[in-house]
Each structure stands twice: as structure tokens, then as C-alpha cells.
């Protein structure tokens, strides 16, 4: 239980620190405090003055951060300057699309990566090993944006790209881990006693490698979210990756910072869940 509390406290502290950095970026961004409404010729001097005063209230960084946190607690993430829509509304529209893409990408990447790593480590067939290593190596050297462009040219579904971005990292790590595990004395003994390949894998190899694989699962969530920016932007998938790209081009810091914070929260949650699942015994002890 205390481990759970520690993780929750860690996430909260990191998000508060991240929020502060984000608020600093928004506050320092060029054009902060300048409102297009001031250019409205129908407004008189008093109205313009009132508008300026409403901005001036949060001029200091500390004041701005407290105001920002206050809004955050109420679920108000502000309004996007470039799209003129509340950030929460944009998130509600686009987050499910990204979750779908990232979920599909992770499932594909893990299935492909783990299957080829197991085949490569256990079969001891040089062709399988060479084929999967070359495939993973080639994909590792390819920027996510180029893969996305190639998929657009080939008119293939863009979501597959996320799986191909995650796959080589999973394959390489899992392959090395499994090769090391296969050479462990207890695995060799099990094999010598006549245990079959599937049984050895299920009972003797996977339990040893599970904590590291779970840690990798946490990290792969962050990889998939990062890759969602070029993939969604170029494959025209209406998710938060595309939104972040549009916000960057429009220098919409309010939107960009909130998106980054939310994605950070999701990846922190994934990492903590992987960490907790990877060491259940320690969790039970505490």
C-alpha cells in the first residue's frame, strides 16, 4: 500500500513541477497578455483598460501559476488561441482517436516484437534471427515521419506505423533478454530434463524476464505517444498528436503545454503501473 502511495506522490510532484514549467513557458511565450479583442474598434478606452487590467492580475509568474492550478482543479484547461475552442473540448474530441491509435500500435508492436524475439532466441535458426534483426534494424533507422509518409504514398492505414515504430525497440530488448535467460542454469536443467520449448518458455523463462518486460511496456507507452505526432500529422488522423503539431505551428502555447502535461500524466501512470506489476512481491510485503 505504501508503495502505491509513494508512486502516487511521485506522479503528483512531477506533474506539479511539470505544471510549473508549463505555466512558465505559457507566461514567457511571446504575445502573452495581448488580446486581439483590444483591436476591436467598437471598444472604448475604458473597456480596453478593463481588459488590460484583467490580464495584469496574473502578470507575476507565481500569481499566474496559482491561477493556472486553480483553473486546472476546476477542470478548466483554458482556450486554444489558434483554434478558438476550449482545450477540454478539443481533448474530448481527439483523445479517444489517439488512445485507439496508440493502443493498436502498442498491441501490434508488442505482438510482432515479442513473437520474433521468442522465435529468434528459442529456435536458434540463423535465418529467423537474421531476418528479424535486419527488419528491426531497418525500422530502427527510419524516422517515424518517413514511415508515415511511405504509408501515405502506399495508401496503407497510418495506425500500422505506430506498431512499426514500437516493434524494433521491443524486439531488440526482448531478444537480448531472452537469449540471456535461455542460457540460465535452471533453464538448461529444465531442457536437459526434457521440458518442451513452450513449457520452458512459459514456466522457466517468462517469469524471470517478466519484470524487465513490464518495465519496457511502461516505456513503450511514452514511445508510442511521441511517435503519434508525426504519424497523426502526416496520415491525417485527428488525434492529439496532430493537435500538438498544429498548436506548435500556430505557437499556441496554452494548448501545447496542456497536451504535453496530459500525455506526461498518462506515461507516468503507465510507468508506475508497470513498476507496481513488475514487483508484486515487494508490494505485498509493504
Amino acid at each position, binding site marked *: 500500500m505504501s508503495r502505491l502511495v509513494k508512486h502516487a506522490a*511521485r506522479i503528483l*510532484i*512531477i506533474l506539479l*513541477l*511539470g505544471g510549473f*514549467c508549463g505555466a512558465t*513557458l505559457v507566461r*514567457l*511565450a*511571446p504575445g502573452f497578455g495581448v488580446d486581439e479583442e483590444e483591436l476591436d474598434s467598437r471598444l472604448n478606452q475604458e473597456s480596453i483598460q478593463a481588459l488590460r487590467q484583467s490580464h495584469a492580475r496574473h502578470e507575476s509568474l507565481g500569481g499566474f501559476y496559482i491561477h493556472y492550478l486553480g483553473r486546472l482543479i476546476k477542470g478548466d484547461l483554458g482556450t486554444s488561441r489558434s483554434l478558438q475552442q476550449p482545450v477540454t473540448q478539443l481533448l474530448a474530441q481527439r483523445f479517444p482517436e489517439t488512445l485507439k491509435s496508440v493502443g493498436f500500435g502498442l498491441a501490434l508492436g508488442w505482438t510482432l516484437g515479442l513473437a520474433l524475439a521468442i522465435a529468434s532466441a528459442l529456435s536458434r535458426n540463423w535465418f529467423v534471427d537474421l531476418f528479424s534483426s535486419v527488419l528491426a*534494424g*531497418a525500422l*530502427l*533507422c*527510419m*524516422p*517515424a*515521419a*518517413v514511415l508515415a*509518409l*511511405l504509408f501515405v*504514398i502506399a495508401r496503407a492505414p497510418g495506425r500500422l506505423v505506430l506498431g512499426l515504430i514500437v516493434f524494433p525497440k521491443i524486439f531488440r530488448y526482448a531478444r537480448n533478454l531472452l537469449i540471456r535467460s535461455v542460457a540460465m542454469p535452471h533453464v538448461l536443467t529444465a531442457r536437459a530434463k526434457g521440458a518442451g520449448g513452450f513449457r520452458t518458455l512459459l514456466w522457466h523463462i517468462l517469469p524471470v524476464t517478466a519484470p524487465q518486460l513490464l518495465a519496457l511496456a511502461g516505456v513503450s507507452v*511514452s*514511445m508510442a*505517444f*511521441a*511517435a503519434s*505526432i*508525426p504519424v497523426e*500529422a*502526416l496520415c491525417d488522423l485527428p488525434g492529439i498528436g496532430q493537435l*500538438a*503539431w498544429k*498548436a*506548435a*505551428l500556430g*505557437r*499556441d*502555447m496554452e494548448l*501545447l*503545454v496542456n*497536451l*504535453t502535461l496530459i*500525455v*506526461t500524466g498518462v*506515461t*507516468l501512470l503507465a*510507468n508506475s503501473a508497470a513498476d507496481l506489476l513488475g514487483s508484486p512481491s515487494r508490494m505485498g510485503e509493504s
Partner: protein
Amino acid sequence: MKRARIGAIVFLIAISVVCLLADFVAPSSYARQFRDAPDAAPSRQHLLGTDDLGRDRFSRLLYGTRVSLLLAPGAALLSCLLAAVIGGTAGFVGGWLERFVMGATDLFLSLPWLFLLITVRALLPLNIAPLTSVIITFALLGCLGWAASARVICTDTRSISDSGFILLARASGSGGCRLLWRHIFPNLRPVLFAQFWISIPVFILTEANLGILGLGVAEPLPSWGSLLRELESFSASFDQPWRFAALALFIIVVSCFHLALQKQELPA
């Protein structure tokens, strides 16, 4: 495997030398337009043809490779220096400073890399001179890519600080700065070198991603990002394979870095 590593290193050296001599090797300047021959096929005059604006694609590839191959190591050096100073000092001093630095690296590592980069990039002006855009892009990569290396260096510094020869040096009267400079940093050299080498392909890939998204090096200066962006306008390019030359060279160079890297990982 050893032969492949040597081959990779030789190829990297050769391509770096050719690109450094781009002013002499390239048939024309990267920005020169041959207006009478836009989108031309390969010929004696234009080895890889010309792009939509009539610029010689081979020359642009040479200059673009030079930008990426010179500046990615520069950014890697900057990030390693930052990591050495921050991680080394935190590991050596320990206590609250170490905890604070570890917290900061936690924060940096939790932020998805591209989200962080485009957020900070958006804070800076987008319509800028090409040379400024090069400096901003690679300086950003260097300044934001230190966290993972700092974590490794902090842990290594801590273990070196606890070792016998450091205790002996302390007992002989060596002060903090002398200990760091004469005893700890020389022992961190292999780790720093490995971190430097690991960062280069990561930065090359990231610059390419940023360039394709229009957030990297500005036109007309070529970089791998802007050269690969050309793929965007290829609808039926499979009958014009020379257009994929930049992508082929990119994959070969990054693969060479990965191949050469395998040896560097061993001492770490």
C-alpha cells in the same frame, strides 16, 4: 561482426570527408536554381536529377548530409557536457542535490521527447533565417537531451566516489574540484563516450522528424529533415527511384552509427 563495424566506421569517415568537401565536390550550390530544368531526371549534369524548384538534388544531398553529420555530433557533445556537469556534480555532492537532479531527470524522462521538443521549439520564432534555424534546432536537441545521460553519469559518479582510490585521494588532501577533475572525470570517459555515440543517431532521427514536420532547419538550407520532406510530394514516385537517394543514404548512415555503436557499448 568486427568487419561490419570496421566497414561502418570507414563508411562514416568517408561520407563525412566527402560532405565536408561539399564546396568542391558538389556540382553547384544547394540554393542554385536551374529554372529551365525543374523536376529533371538524372543526367550527367544532375546526378540525382533536380527538385521541383530546379535545384540539383545531389548537391543538396551533400550539403544536407554535411549539416546533419556535423551538427548532430555537436548537439550530442553539448548534451554530454551538460550531463557530465549536472550528473557528475550531483553524484559527487550527493544528498539533496542528487535527489533534486534525479527528480529533474524523472520529469524530463517522463515527457515524451517529441512533445517536449515541439513545445520548446514553438516558444521560439518560427520564421527565422536558415542559419539561425540550424543553430536553434540542434541547440535544442543538445539542451533537452541530457537527462538520460545525466542519470547514468550520476550513478557512475556515485559508485566511483565510493571507491577506494577516491578515499585515498581524499585522505591525501585532494579537494572537491581536484577530485572531480583529476580522478572522477577521467574514469567517466568511457561512459561519456558511449553516451555521446548513442545520442548521435537519436538526434539525427529527431532532426529528420522535426524537419519533415516543418519545425526543423528552414529552407533553402538543406538538412536530412528537409530533404526527406520531399517525399511528401511524391505521389507516384516508385517509377523514379532516384528520389529515394536521400532516404537510402539516411538509413545507411544511421545503420552505420548503430553498427559502430555496438563496440562502444561494451566498456560502459
